[in-house]
C-alpha cells in the first residue's frame, strides 16, 4: 500500500529525513515512534503531498506522491496533530464542506457522514457547532472528516496528543474499529503502550532514520536480553561502604555493562539471558551479598524506545 524508498528531506543544512525506507502492506496499522524532531511529521506530510521531498520516492497504491501530488490526495486521508476550528460551523456542515472539496454530491456526503459520525460516536452531535465540542470529540470528528472520501491510506499525526485519558480511550476505540474495517493506517504517537496494543507493525525513528521496523512482537523478541535488572541489597559482609562493594563485585561479572544506584535500589544494565541473570544472583550469594529483591524488567515498546533513543524523549 505505502512504499517509501530513499526518502530524504533537507532544510538548509538540517537533514530531517535521511534515506528513509519503509513498506506498509494493505490493512496494516503502522505505528511511527520517535522523539520530537525525528522526522515522523515530515514523513507524514510528504506522504500527504503537503511537503516536497528533496529526493526519494513515496508511492501509495502505485501512485507516486511526489510526482503526482494531486492524484495522491484522493488516496490519502490526513489527521494533523492539531484540530483547527472554524467558528460558526456545525458538525454536519463541517463534513459537507470537506466532502464538497472532494467534488462529492450533497446527498452522498450526507449518507456517508451519517455513517462516519456513528463510527466516531458523534451521531448525537451533528447539529452542534464544531467549536463547542471537546478536544477529544474534535479529534474524532477530524478522523471522520479524513475518511469522507474513503481513502486507501489514513495518516494520523499524534491523534492522541493533548487528550485526557477518557478521550484517548474513545479515540483508541475508533482506531480499533478502523482496524477491524481493514483500513491501512500510518499513525504516530508518544503514547507507546497504546501503539503496541493497536498497531500490527511499528517503526522507531531517530535523526531522520528508521532505527528499527517490523511487527511489534518480532521487535520486542529480537531485543530480549537487554533489559536491566533491579535489585535491593540489604546486607554484605564487608567493611567497605555497601554500594562501593556491591558495584565492585558486579562489575567483575560477565554481561554486566553498567551499575547505578538509586535511593534503595541497584540498577544493573545486563546483556545476558535469564540463565546468566540467575548465575549473577548466585555469584552475589557467593560474595555474601544478601538481596531482598531481584527482578528483571519486562521488555515492552516503551523500554525499547527509550533504549534505542537513549532516553532522550519522555515516551
Amino acid at each position, binding site marked *: 500500500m505505502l512504499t517509501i524508498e530513499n526518502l530524504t528531506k533537507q*532544510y538548509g543544512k538540517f537533514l*530531517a529525513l535521511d534515506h528513509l525506507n519503509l513498506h506498509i502492506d494493505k490493512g496494516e496499522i503502522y505505528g511511527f515512534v520517535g522523539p520530537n524532531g525525528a522526522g515522523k511529521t*515530515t514523513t507524514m*506530510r510528504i506522504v*500527504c*503531498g*503537503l*511537503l*516536497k521531498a528533496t529526493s526519494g520516492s513515496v508511492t501509495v497504491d502505485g501512485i507516486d506522491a511526489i510526482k503526482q501530488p*494531486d492524484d495522491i*490526495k*484522493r488516496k*490519502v*486521508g*490526513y489527521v*494533523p496533530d*492539531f*484540530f*483547527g*476550528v*472554524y*467558528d*460558526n*460551523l456545525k458538525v454536519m*456542515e463541517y463534513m459537507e*464542506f*470537506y466532502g*464538497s*472539496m*472532494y*467534488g462529492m*454530491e450533497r446527498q452522498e456526503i450526507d449518507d456517508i457522514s451519517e455513517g462516519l459520525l456513528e463510527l466516531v460516536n458523534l451521531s448525537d452531535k451533528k447539529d452542534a457547532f464544531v467549536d463547542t465540542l471537546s478536544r477529544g470529540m474534535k479529534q474524532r470528528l*477530524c478522523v471522520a*472528516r479524513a475518511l469522507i472520501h474513503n481513502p486507501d491510506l489514513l495518516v494520523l499525526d499524534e491523534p492522541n496528543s493533548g487528550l485526557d485519558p477518557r478521550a484517548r480511550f474513545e479515540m483508541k476505540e475508533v482506531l480499533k474499529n478502523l482496524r477491524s474495517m481493514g483500513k491501512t493506517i500510518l499513525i504516530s504517537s508518544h503514547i507507546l503502550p497504546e501503539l503496541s496494543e493497536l498497531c500490527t507493525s511499528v517503526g522507531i525513528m531517530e535523526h531522520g532514520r528508521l532505527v528499527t521496523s517490523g511487527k511489534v512482537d518480532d521487535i520486542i523478541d529480537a531485543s530480549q536480553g537487554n533489559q536491566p535488572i533491579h535489585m535491593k541489597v540489604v546486607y554484605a559482609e564487608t567493611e567497605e561502604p555497601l554500594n562501593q562493594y556491591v558495584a565492585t563485585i558486579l562489575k567483575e561479572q560477565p554481561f554486566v555493562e553498567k551499575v547505578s544506584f538509586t535511593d534503595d535500589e541497584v540498577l544493573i544494565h545486563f546483556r545476558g539471558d535469564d540463565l546468566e541473570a540467575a548465575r549473577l544472583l548466585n555469584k552475589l550469594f557467593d560474595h555474601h551479598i544478601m538481596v531482598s529483591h531481584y527482578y528483571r524488567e519486562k521488555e515492552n515498546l516503551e523500554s525499547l524506545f527509550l533504549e534505542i533513543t537513549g532516553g532522550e524523549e519522555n515516551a
Partner: protein
Amino acid sequence: MRKRLHMNPIWKKELVVGSRSMKMSWAIMGINAFLTIIVLIVLSITNMSAATSGYRYATLIWLFPILGCIECGLISLIVPVITSGSISGERERQTLDVMLTTPVTTFSIAVGKLGSAMSVVMMYMIASIPVMAIAFVLGGMSWWALLGLFGMLLYLGIYVGSVGVFCSSVVKKSVVSTILTIAIGIGIIIVTTVILYVVIATQSAMCDAKGVAYAGPGAAAFIMMLNPYSPIVDFMMRVMMGTGIDRLMEEMGTKSSIILAISRWWIPCSIVINMIISFIFLKLAARNISVTRNRK
C-alpha cells in the same frame, strides 16, 4: 450526460460562517447609518440655502457622486479587512494544511476567498440601496446610473479583494495584511498620478523650450488606466457632466484620433486591465499558498 455545476466549497463555507456572524449585521448598520448621516447633512444644507435662494432640487443630484465616492472609500477599507485574514487566518487556525490535502486547487482557494469577500460587498451594496435611492428619487438620477455605480463598486471590490487575498497569502498577521493591502492601493494611486504628473511636467517643459504649444500627455495618460479608481472617475464624470476623461484629454490639447478613441472607451479598457492585474494577484496568492509545501 449533464455535468452539475458545483459552487466553490470555500466560498460556500465562508458564506455560511459569515452569515452567522454578528459582525456583518453591525457593519451593514454602521455603513447605512454613515450614509444616512451624509444624506441628512446634504438635505439640511439644501434646506438652509432654500431660505435665501429658493429650493434647488438640482443640487440634490450631487448626492450621487458624494455617496458613490463614500461607498468606494468604504469598500477600499472594508474589503482589505475582510480579505486580510483569508489565507493568514487559515494558517493561524491550522486549517490550511487539511485544505491542501484535498483536491481543491490553491487557485480555487484564493478565488473562494475573494468570492466570499465579494458576497459581503454585495450584501453591503444591497443593504445601502434605500439610502442610495434618495439621490435618485430627489435628485432625479436614472436607475441605470445606480446599476452602473454598483457595477463599479463590484469591480473595485474584486480589485481590492484580490490584492487583499494576495497580501494575506504573503504575510502571517491579518493586521499587517490589511495595512499592506491599503498601502498597495494608495501606492498604485500615488505612483500612477506621480508618473503622469512627471510626464506632463517634462513634456510641458520641452514644449516651452521649443516654443510650441503643449498638446497634452497623449498616450502617456493611459498610465492612469492602471489606477483602479480611474474608471470610476470617468463613470462619475459621464453621469454628472455627460463627458468623460476623453473630453479632459481633448481640452488638454490631445489631437490624436486613436488616443481619443481609446480614451472614449476608458471604462472598459481600464476595467479589463485591472481585472487582468487582479487575476495576476490571485495567481500569485495561489502560488504563495502552494509554497507552504516547502515549509516545515
